[in-house]
């Protein structure tokens, strides 16, 4: 039985609703992870979205956000982003006062006295804010009215998150780990005392430098392996699976294996195809989350925001390519960009989705060379179709078969692309093949059938 977070998607702003509802709602992802800032800042719109979504979700409390240099929390006008102000207000002190003074939080901001209060506010924010909006107050009248009309297709069933996440600091040093340990124990006590009736999970957000240190990884594992929480959401700052070295991939793999050996379920918060391959390891990820097109890796700063570009997700490489690289591969392989997936050769070797019937739209540019809105929507639709196929195919395929396909893609395209653009395929294969105690989850190999998706 696949984990309920096997294929998760990150919701970060309301313009993404188009892709969470509509044709992508059913069968494309299992769970939604919402940014705490959007819940705090636009709780009415978010509650309506949740009522329509009718899927289980969780709220990332984003408590790490307040640790970073204040410049990363500001918008173009030089003020702290309103969404983060709203979040800090929900959490109270010490975060609220420090943000008002435009100072950052750190491990020394927390002590025995304020930890308990802070933990309670963070957990209650996740558990109670959206149900309160929906069930009480003036907005609930509108919701009740809307619920009566079946054409609105709303439901209260999933208005609470399926689990709660303990507050966490971004781990750069040992003090951060100690504070997180206190947050977790305090959260466990509170959930039991108050009978919240929700599972507690932890979130591990680690700096790249800390993760590179074996000492730090061992210290983190020593603490987190022993917590009683059954689930860990993992995010390594700026970790790009297609760019990092074999050693770094090995470190990730062994870290996840160690973390999950006591039965803990580990979910990759920003992961791509390598993370998906790790779900086939005996002690690997149980699920992988990604954002809308640009969320298979993420830096902790800037907090929120970021401009997505219309990059083409190239299925054989399992990564997004710049438009120039995509165009070059298409041309060198004599794929007809006017036909796209209507060209049988293209459909077989690259993609058969309906979005790829219109390749030129994906390459539309403004006069200044930026992608048009149409281009972004088209490339995102194509990305989501391929993500669904990847998750489904990985679930039902054996690891050796998946690794062979990486090798096949490398062979197919090595003459028509730069070596550095496909070297990651071999790195992934080498890392996943290496461990002697690697046992794959039993699955049947099924015949590959690329389905045409009906709009």
């Amino acid at each position, binding site marked *: 039985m696949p984990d309920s977070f096997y294929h998760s998607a990150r919701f970060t702003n309301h313009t993404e609703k188009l892709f969470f509802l509509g044709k992508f709602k059913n069968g494309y992802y299992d769970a939604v992870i919402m940014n705490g800032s959007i819940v705090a800042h636009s709780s009415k719109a978010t509650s309506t979205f949740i009522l329509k979504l009718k899927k289980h979700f969780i709220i990332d409390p984003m408590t790490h956000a307040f640790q970073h240099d204040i410049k990363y929390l500001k918008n173009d006008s030089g003020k702290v982003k309103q969404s983060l102000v709203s979040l800090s207000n929900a959490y109270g002190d010490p975060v609220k006062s420090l943000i008002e003074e435009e100072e950052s939080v750190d491990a020394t901001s927390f002590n025995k006295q304020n930890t308990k209060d802070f933990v309670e506010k963070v957990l209650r924010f996740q558990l109670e804010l959206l149900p309160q909006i929906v069930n009480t107050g003036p907005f609930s009248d509108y919701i009740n009215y809307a619920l009566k009309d079946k054409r609105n297709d709303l439901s209260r069933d999933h208005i609470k998150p399926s689990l709660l996440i303990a507050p966490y600091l971004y781990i750069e040093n040992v003090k951060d780990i100690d504070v997180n340990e206190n947050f977790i124990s305090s959260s466990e006590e509170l959930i039991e005392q108050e009978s919240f009736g929700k599972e507690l999970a932890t979130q591990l957000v680690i700096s790249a430098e800390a993760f590179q240190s074996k000492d730090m990884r061992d210290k983190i594992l020593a603490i987190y392996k022993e917590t009683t929480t059954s689930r860990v959401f993992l995010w390594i700052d700026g970790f790009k699976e297609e760019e990092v070295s074999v050693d770094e991939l090995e470190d990730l793999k062994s870290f996840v294996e160690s973390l999950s050996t006591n039965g803990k379920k580990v979910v990759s918060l920003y992961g791509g195809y390598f993370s998906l391959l790790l779900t086939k390891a005996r002690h690997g990820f149980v699920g992988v989350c990604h954002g809308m097109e640009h969320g298979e890796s993420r830096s902790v700063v800037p907090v929120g925001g970021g401009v997505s570009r219309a990059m083409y997700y190239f299925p054989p490489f399992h990564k997004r390519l710049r438009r*120039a690289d995509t165009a*070059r591969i298409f*041309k060198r392989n004599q794929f007809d960009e006017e036909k796209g997936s209507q060209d049988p050769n293209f459909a077989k070797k690259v993609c058969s989705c309906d979005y790829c019937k219109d390749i030129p739209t994906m390459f539309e*540019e403004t*006069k*200044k060379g*930026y992608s048009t809105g149409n281009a972004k929507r088209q490339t995102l639709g194509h990305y989501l179709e391929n993500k669904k196929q990847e998750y489904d195919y990985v679930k039902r395929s054996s690891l050796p078969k998946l690794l062979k396909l990486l090798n096949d893609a490398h062979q197919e395209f090595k003459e028509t692309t730069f070596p550095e653009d496909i070297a990651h395929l071999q790195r992934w294969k080498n890392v996943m093949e290496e461990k002697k105690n690697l046992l794959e989850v039993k699955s049947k190999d099924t015949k590959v059938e690329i389905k045409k998706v009906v709009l």
Partner: protein
Amino acid sequence: MSEQKIQKSLFLYLKRKYKRAKEEVPALNRRADIVYINEKKELVTIEVKLKNWKQAIRQAVDHQLYADRAYICMPQNIKTNKRLTDELSKHGVGLLLVNVSNKRIYVKTEIEAERTKYYWKQTRVRVENLIYA
């Protein structure tokens, strides 16, 4: 001399010579330093670099998706070596060497660029419209 000064001098020279020339032309997530139409009505791009020829070649290869010929341009005193010439030859990218002194520019075509075999049509049309506008 800085990269920007070389680029500017070269651009002004090409503009005087060929009329249809533009700087910083955006296309396919990149900006070509200089794009111009030569006497054979070919669309030509130039990437100016002081040292980093690998990056310049990579950029020039991108420009080949809409240009007839793509060059990199480097200072005359650069030491060309086999690695550089092999890489240029592999991708069909040309090499211009320039010397700017006493407000004069001397441009030498050290390696002729190959004529590109295919375009990305919509980008080619867009860049042509920009140049001819």
